[in-house]
């Protein structure tokens, strides 16, 4: 690959996912190039995590295509998927650590199961990865014995244990203190800039998003639920003319996404729709 035209790592086209009659993802298209940090933003329940689940292959879309490293994943067999997944790491929202194993064993798991390295080296890598997320010395604790934020960081250490080419992070900094947030952000930036890892991060944290993101998409709410309402570099998003995007990145309580229902609607919802039919009040 030449320096000017970077390799496309993820290509999502016209992704649609319906759960019953509800459309959760409605025609999502974007590409992520090597070395990018793609930020996926949007209100709670707008389908960010669902989108991520489709990209990692846990869910199959209703229609549309997802290509990772040029390979179509929506029609892939489980065996092919297993092979492809060796090239990426996923940091789950709540860590998703195995409760029966210690912190150290959790980080070592992908190494032991997917590579044939010496136990001494596994031990060394585990220490290195835990050091990266600021958890030196926690190897022998069980996930139940550490805090939620720490579990999340162990999840990140496990996700990068095999030095993946592609890292997915589901809200990596929610619930972390400001210093730890900065540490995790710095780590993500180091991984993408120095090791040319590609990252896809779902986040609510605006400061962190604009710090680490090189590309962003914003998913809409209400009428535009499950659609991309803004797409581009952090500057594009910051200068977006879309009022909903502005409301979102500034964190304003009222705007295109209403704070409360209009008074008439509110009474309708409270009393059901038949208030003319003899409900006296």
């Amino acid at each position, binding site marked *: 690959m030449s320096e000017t035209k970077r390799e496309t790592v993820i290509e999502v086209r016209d992704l649609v996912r319906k759960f019953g009659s509800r459309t959760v993802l409605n025609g999502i298209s974007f590409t992520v190039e090597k070395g990018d940090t793609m930020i996926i933003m949007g209100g709670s329940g707008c389908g960010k995590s669902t989108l991520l689940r489709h990209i990692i292959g*846990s869910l199959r879309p209703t229609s549309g295509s997802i290509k990772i490293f040029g390979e179509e994943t929506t029609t892939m067999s489980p065996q092919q998927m297993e092979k492809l997944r060796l090239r990426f790491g996923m940091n789950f929202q709540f860590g998703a650590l195995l409760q029966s194993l210690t912190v150290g064993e959790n980080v070592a798991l992908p190494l032991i*199961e997917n590579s044939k390295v010496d136990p001494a080296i596994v031990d060394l890598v585990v220490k290195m990865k835990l050091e990266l997320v600021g958890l030196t010395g926690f190897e022998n604790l069980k996930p139940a014995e550490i805090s939620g934020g720490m579990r999340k960081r162990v999840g990140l250490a496990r996700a990068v244990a095999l030095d993946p080419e592609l890292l997915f992070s589901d809200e990596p900094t929610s619930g972390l203190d400001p210093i730890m947030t900065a540490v995790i952000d710095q780590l993500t930036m180091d991984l993408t800039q120095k090791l040319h890892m590609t990252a896809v991060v779902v986040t609510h944290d605006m400061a962190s998003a604009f710090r680490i993101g090189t590309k962003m998409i914003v998913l809409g709410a209400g009428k535009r639920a499950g659609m991309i309402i803004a797409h581009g570099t952090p500057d594009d998003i910051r200068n977006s003319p879309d009022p909903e995007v502005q409301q979102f990145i500034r964190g304003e309580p009222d705007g295109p996404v209403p704070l409360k229902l209009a008074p008439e609607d509110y009474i309708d919802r409270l009393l059901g729709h038949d208030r003319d039919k003899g409900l006296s009040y």
Partner: protein
Amino acid sequence: MAALRQFLTLNAQILYWTFVAPFAGKPTVRIDAIFQQMVRIGVQAVPMAALTSLSIGLTLAMQGSHELARMGATSYVPDLLSITLLRELAPLLTGVVVIGRSGSAITAELGTMKVSEEIEALEVMSINPIRFLVAPRVIAMIIMLPCLVVFSNYIGFVGGWIICNFALDINTTKYIMRLIESADMMDLISGMTKSFVFGWLISVISCQSGLAVTGGAEGVGRSTTKSVVLCILVMLVVNAILTGMFFIIEGPKG
């Protein structure tokens, strides 16, 4: 019907990871995981299995001697014990103990892992959950349930011996001789076959119920209850079928 198909698929996957994958250069089922499960399912169930079968041995001998005394045949109590324990009660009751202790635990554990995204995390790490979680439990159960049944047989006989020796006029030597005389190889084979089949059914049904959990902590509870009920029902029905098969194979005993 969908559940039956899932059950068969799960079996095929377990067979694949146990017997095919090691020769296809794929990662294998971890031996240490199997031993860990064997301790949990087998060794730790020993006290409970012992208490259960001791009580059953005692009860059987007492009830049997009551009935047989009317015909003046109390010396046949050991015969009654050996046949009922070896063929029916030891496999069934050990099965019930294992369903209650380990079957429910397997469903609850896998179910909790499912709802806390741990299973999904394993898949994303390219670690097959069937190989990593299900196969060790199934293998361990298929090995350990027959072991527990053999153990239960012995303890059941001890229970019978207590009654025969202290309440009836059958001394230890006579008791042992009558046991050996009355039991034939087919009794043991029939009981052991059952225990293998039960071990397989209990473990696979429990794992399948665990992996099928949806909907948080409530879902885990619901699935665990359903799985225990299903295991017991399936075990009783299959027990009747197997007894019927042995009945046909051997013909009515004369």
